[in-house]
């Protein structure tokens, strides 16, 4: 029987494939539905937040920052409540990271402000002496890609039934809604509304001017995203 297999490359390949596919089938498939159920209080990203998330990904922030708080005292002391599976329900892709060259960012919105991020992204070592994080000055001039963020929102709403424009249960028993515009112009308008709120707390005059002129620099979108991480 064994020798029969060794002589036949095709059946040999089938046997190898079954052996290696087995683990994936058993491990991953059965838990799919359960692991993707959101926790109470977890809402999908708004257009601007999603655009900010794209900025985060574009610059591989996840190469140095994790978004996963493990259930140890040292971690919950430092970063807040440990992560729950359902909190990631709307994260496509996940951004857990694999290396903490810098601190975890899972709940950074709880303890950092717009103002802090603005100064830190422009000159990290000026805010945190000894920091080895590079500056991200180009984010103050590059314009965020709202179109792609909106396209992604439309996609996940239609393909994965992400509940935009629907009531989402919150922890205090109330409900809240994340609006999704019905046109690209609408998406730009609502993103700009949100951007104005962020820009109010910022100091950089060029960024403020850009937002006043209807443009959204990457930094504004990124800060909106960081502030949403709670």
């Amino acid at each position: 029987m064994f020798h029969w297999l060794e002589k036949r490359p095709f059946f040999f390949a089938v046997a190898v494939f079954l052996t290696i596919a087995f683990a994936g089938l058993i491990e991953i498939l059965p838990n799919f539905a359960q692991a993707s159920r959101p926790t109470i209080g977890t809402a999908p990203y708004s257009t601007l937040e999603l655009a900010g998330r794209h900025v985060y990904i574009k610059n591989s922030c996840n190469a140095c920052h994790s978004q996963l708080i493990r259930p140890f005292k040292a971690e919950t002391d430092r970063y807040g409540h440990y992560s729950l599976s359902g909190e990631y329900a709307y994260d496509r892709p996940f951004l857990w990271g694999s290396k903490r060259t810098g601190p975890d960012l899972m709940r950074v919105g709880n303890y950092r402000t717009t103002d802090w991020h603005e100064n830190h992204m422009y000159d990290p070592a000026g805010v945190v002496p000894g920091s080895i994080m590079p500056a991200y000055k180009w984010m103050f001039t590059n314009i965020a890609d709202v179109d792609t963020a909106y396209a992604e929102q439309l996609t996940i709403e239609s393909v994965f039934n992400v509940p935009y424009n629907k009531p989402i249960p919150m922890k205090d028993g109330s409900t809240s809604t994340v609006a999704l515009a019905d046109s690209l112009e609408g998406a730009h308008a609502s993103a700009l509304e949100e951007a104005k709120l962020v820009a109010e707390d910022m100091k950089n005059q060029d960024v403020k001017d850009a937002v006043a002129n209807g443009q959204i620099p990457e930094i504004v979108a990124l800060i909106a995203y960081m502030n949403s991480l709670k």
Partner: protein
Amino acid sequence: MENRPLEYDYSVAKLFMFTTIVLGIVGMLIGVILAFQLAFPSINLLLGEGLAEYTNFSRLRPLHTDAVIFGFTLSGVFATWYYIGQRVLKVSMAESGFLMFIGKLHFWLYVVGVAAVVVSLFMGITTSKEYAEFEWPIDIAIVIVWVLWGISVFGLIGIRRERSLYISIWYYIATFLGIAMLYLFNNMEVPTYFASGGIGAWYHSVSMYSGTNDALVQWWYGHNAVAFGFTVPIVAMIYYFLPKESGQAVYSYKLSLLSFWGLMFVYLWAGGHHLLFSTVPDWMQTMGSVFSVILILPSWGSAINMLLTMKGEWQQVASSPLIKFMVLASTFYMFSTLEGPIQAIKSVNALAHFTDWIVGHVHDGVLGWVGFMIMAALFHMAPRVFKRELYSKALMTTQFWIQTLGVVLYFTSMWIAGITQGMMWRAHDEFGNLAYSFIDTVTVLHPYYTIRAVGGLLYLIGFFMFAYNIYKTMSARPVEENELQSATPMAA
């Protein structure tokens, strides 16, 4: 034509040898730059403020990992396949115009894919998933390249003269199947441009899986991309090159067969160890730990088999630098397959995860095992492919010691850095408050980051010596007339 004796045709192997060297230099050079950036952040502005976006750590980091994995290593795998494949199947690619065409197409599409990857990663077009950063158009190109390689593998097997498949061929087949399955499932994504009716960037896509599921699939992929990229095909190489170079048949062929099936079964289960203490189900995390420890057995089965192949022939280690490379590679393989399972034990992982110890582990595997083995393979192939004696034995020996020193500096500094940082993160003072702020745990690493960067630089210097040696072999040595049997001829 009719009267010429049949010879193996290495034209495709040669092309891939070329990309192995070029992309090896690219990947390692970027790696050294990254290492120095962590020690001295001002290097992020390497080419000035204007280009900071493209020379900054976070943009370069995926380029480094992908250039080494999909550039250097994969080219090495292809180069050795187009060499070993013909030889152990005893069939020449010259016998099939079709396979020759597929082989060349395979190479050129691969080059196009690599170029697209480099450009897109510099632009920041990435899906963020480690070792699967490419957006959907490149994914499709990669699948085509992979299918072409599959046609090459099975096509050559189809016209073989040797009835039994040598153990190396088993490992190449497993590489092909493993990566194909993993890559396809991990890169399931929906292009947003088409799903939204033509809005936004055309190349953008969104993952089919979300959150915890996405993480699970990604690390099932990430871990096994290491298995089927950095372990399985490299074992295929050493099972051919070490016996051939030393003139000793594999110590126990039966053990090699057993290790193969053991590795196939166990490796896939171990992926869960990347997600210990995360939000994936507990039993899966435990499975990941347990199987990671069991994984020592098949890994050591292969490594010990290699060392025993040298039984009674240890004088060759002293006399031949090529054997040195391979023996050190299998030693590092044993070392990192022991270190990995240790890190997968839950209590150790609690300390090691997210620290530089993991980075150290990856690099003693890749620099010590993968890098040394691929360079040894190319050293063995060069005289046979170019029909010339190797340019310089002294240069090889020097390179060996420089690179060994580099690897040792690398992993020792990363051990200390990782354990130091892990301990500082969890330290509490007498009142139960955290003893250190995060930045304290970063500044303390500066000396280790510097040592690591020097270690990496030494390895890169050694790689340049390797490239020079191969280049001179191609161009400066007289053509070899003798039939080459086992040991590779080298000039002093």
